[in-house]
């Protein structure tokens, strides 16, 4: 609802005309009417401001959401005054939505020293990135709606929109699950799992809650229960943020594709219960060490949405730096921004990963298919040749690979069950 009253200007003009007419004709009643209207305006102005006395508002919202999500933003309206608050309007600016402003009304009465939680649902309509929510304001009309008093709360919240993550079916079939298919959920070593392994003698430092009393009674010495160690599959994403891979603009850019693919990979691994990790080198090193849970996933996604292609290291160098962090049995997903790779270096990196019992897979965004922004365009034949050689080499190395071009949306491409198979057939 607009804050400017549709009546104020009209009635101001009418009152001015009445005053003019009254003065011209000597009719005191018309002048009195105009003066009365002026008094009413003044009282309304005061009433609008009084309506806001003691009213505070506070916003509560989640820190992040995925694209196209529908989320609820809570506005806690508090009346710290003594008089009841009526018809108070709280307005908020949700940067990730389309509307300029969200407005909710508390008709009241909201008694003094009371709070009411008002909520609005906002649709995350904008693309991934970091947006602001706010400023938040609280306002009140006078009883006639002639004036609107507003007080702004200068608190701005950062709100992160993560790329729409899709389940990558092909990952389950090709590599992502290889560490655990069929996976042993526990190792035959002493650990913290729920799988009982045996009973041993008590050592100093053992938890007394693990004492196995029947065995202790039989042996005459304290005995403790032992459990097997949990095995958690690790899924690590190596993201290529080398500036050499920059191409395209906006939604058709290599950065967009890289971020969307990496987000979906992490999401799929998280949903499967894997331990996830993220490594990249931009203008600063990006390292999300192995971990589990929503908070961990959010930390990884945060790094994705603030990522910039400002790095000076190729993805193969990134793999070289961080591969030692991967335990045996892990899966390493290489998300590269270009098909122009040093194939010998690639072979060495894959070999090193394999030596550590890590299974690699690669999703390559073909920068040549995007509009070049800071370099001359590459000839089509040369681009095709580069891509073909890379795919051939990957297949030779038995690394599942998928190359994405600008002609296909990344969500559609990575959703295909035969994501990795098509490329093999093409090369063949």
């Amino acid at each position, binding site marked *: 609802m607009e804050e400017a009253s549709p009546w104020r200007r009209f009635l101001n003009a009418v009152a001015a005309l009445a005053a003019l007419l009254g003065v011209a004709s000597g009719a005191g009643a018309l002048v*009195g009417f105009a003066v009365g209207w002026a008094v009413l305006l003044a009282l309304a102005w005061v009433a609008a401001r009084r309506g806001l006395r003691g009213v505070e508002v506070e916003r509560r919202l989640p820190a992040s959401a995925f694209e196209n999500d529908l989320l609820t933003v809570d506005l806690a309206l508090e009346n710290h005054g003594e008089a009841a608050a009526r018809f108070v309007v709280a307005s908020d600016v949700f940067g990730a939505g389309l509307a300029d402003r969200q407005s909710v009304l508390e008709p009241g009465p909201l008694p003094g020293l009371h709070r009411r939680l008002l909520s609005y649902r906002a649709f995350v309509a904008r693309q991934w990135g970091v947006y602001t929510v706010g400023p938040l304001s609280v306002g009140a009309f006078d009883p006639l709606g002639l004036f609107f008093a507003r007080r702004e709360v200068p608190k701005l919240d950062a709100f992160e929109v993560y790329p729409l993550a899709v389940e990558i079916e092909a990952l389950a079939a090709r590599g992502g699950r290889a560490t655990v298919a069929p996976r042993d959920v526990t190792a035959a070593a002493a650990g913290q799992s729920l799988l009982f392994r045996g009973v041993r003698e008590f050592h100093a430092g053992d938890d007394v809650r693990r004492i196995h009393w029947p065995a202790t009674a039989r042996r005459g010495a304290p005995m403790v229960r032992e459990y097997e160690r949990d095995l958690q599959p690790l899924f690590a994403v190596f993201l290529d943020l080398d500036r050499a891979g920059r191409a395209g603009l906006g939604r058709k850019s290599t950065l967009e594709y890289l971020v969307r693919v990496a987000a979906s990979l992490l999401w799929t691994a998280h949903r499967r219960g894997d331990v996830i990790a993220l490594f990249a080198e931009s203008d600063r090193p990006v390292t999300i060490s192995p971990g589990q849970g929503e908070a961990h996933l959010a930390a990884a996604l945060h790094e994705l949405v603030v990522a910039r292609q400002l790095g000076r290291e190729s993805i193969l160098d990134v793999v070289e730096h961080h591969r030692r962090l991967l335990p045996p049995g892990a899966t390493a997903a290489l998300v590269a921004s270009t098909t122009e790779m040093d194939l010998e270096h690639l072979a060495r990196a894959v070999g090193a990963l394999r030596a550590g019992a890590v299974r690699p897979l690669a999703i390559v965004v073909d920068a040549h298919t995007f509009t070049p922004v800071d370099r001359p365009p590459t000839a089509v034949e040369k681009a095709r040749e580069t891509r073909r050689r890379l795919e051939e080499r990957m297949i030779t190395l038995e690394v599942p690979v998928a190359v994405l071009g600008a002609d296909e949306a990344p969500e559609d491409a990575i959703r295909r069950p035969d994501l990795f198979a098509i490329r093999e057939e093409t090369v063949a």
Partner: protein
Amino acid sequence: MRVLGTTVLYLLALLAVGTAQIAWGGPTPLALAGWAIALAVALGLGERFGVYFETVDEKRRDKLAVFLGTLQLSVLALALVLAAGSPTPGLLRFLVGVLSGYALLVLVLARLATQPRGVVGHSLALVALACLKGGALAAVTAGASLALIGMYVGLDHHSRLLAAHRLDEGGHAARALWRSAVLVLPVALLVGVAVHRLAPRGVVLPEPVVEEQGYVPLDKTPQRELDLQALRALVVTGVIGAVAVYFIGRWLVRSKRGETRMIETPEPLRGAVERIRPPSRPAARLPEYPGRRGRVVRAYLNVLRGAERAGFPRRPHETADEFADALGEPRQPLLATTDTFVRARYGPFELSDEDVLEAERGADAVLGHIARRPPRRRADTVRDVDTDVAAPSRR
């Protein structure tokens, strides 16, 4: 709430037509009752037509409303100028008759525009004609019209506010009426009383001309010259003004097209009302030290402020003596000021003028020394904003 608003609108129209007729027309009670019924029927028809108007394309409806509104505005302006400029009982009676009839048409078309400004404006024109009469009638008309307009505007505002936020009007109508009435009625009453007391006179009418009843030539037919002229002027000026204002209005509307902002008023989700913790009691203020004690305390506080500005703030846990030891230089005036302060702040005995002078001189000396040779900065200082530097505890 819409029914309430319509009722208030009807009362406003009835007040305007009724008082204008009483002022200049001299109607019988039966005629007044007839006007009341006619207005009610017209407004009822207007409400019924409002449903059909809503089905018309908004752009077309706006165009028609702007055109009819400007025509009406021109007519009203001309009528009021005529009434104020050269008022005669005959002219005023004629204008009241024309505008009262016009009011029926305006009520029928009341819901053509989003806001029934036409009805309010037209009623106010009739109110103005009634006010020209002066006396108690004018006072009542001015006050009552102000009250009714205020209450209608208040009801309309609440109705739009609730509708915009998708809230049910049920239960809020009475509250809206009460809020509007509380603001408007005292002012309206005041206006009525003030007008009655201060300006009871109306417009001064010319003396009636006594026509000679003697010989009249056959070729000279009696004419109602003023009425005909007024009518002609009304029509011509109204049409010309309407066309002109239509184009101005159209230009205004088009020039504001780019300013629209998208404001979403989603379906509200309201939680329960919870009690919040009362605000904590304000922190205890510094005790007031009148007389000599106050001068000593203020001098010491100046030392603390000066030291803090120089990067050597007192730590919250430090006593006055500890702070003096930590600051160190200039030793003699600092110790003297500190000792006098401790006696003034915590001691039971009254201080002498010499003590006060000693403390103030010492404080000046310390501040001068700090300004010349700032102390080493306290890098590991823990700032406690809640702890005041004015009340260090005694060692």
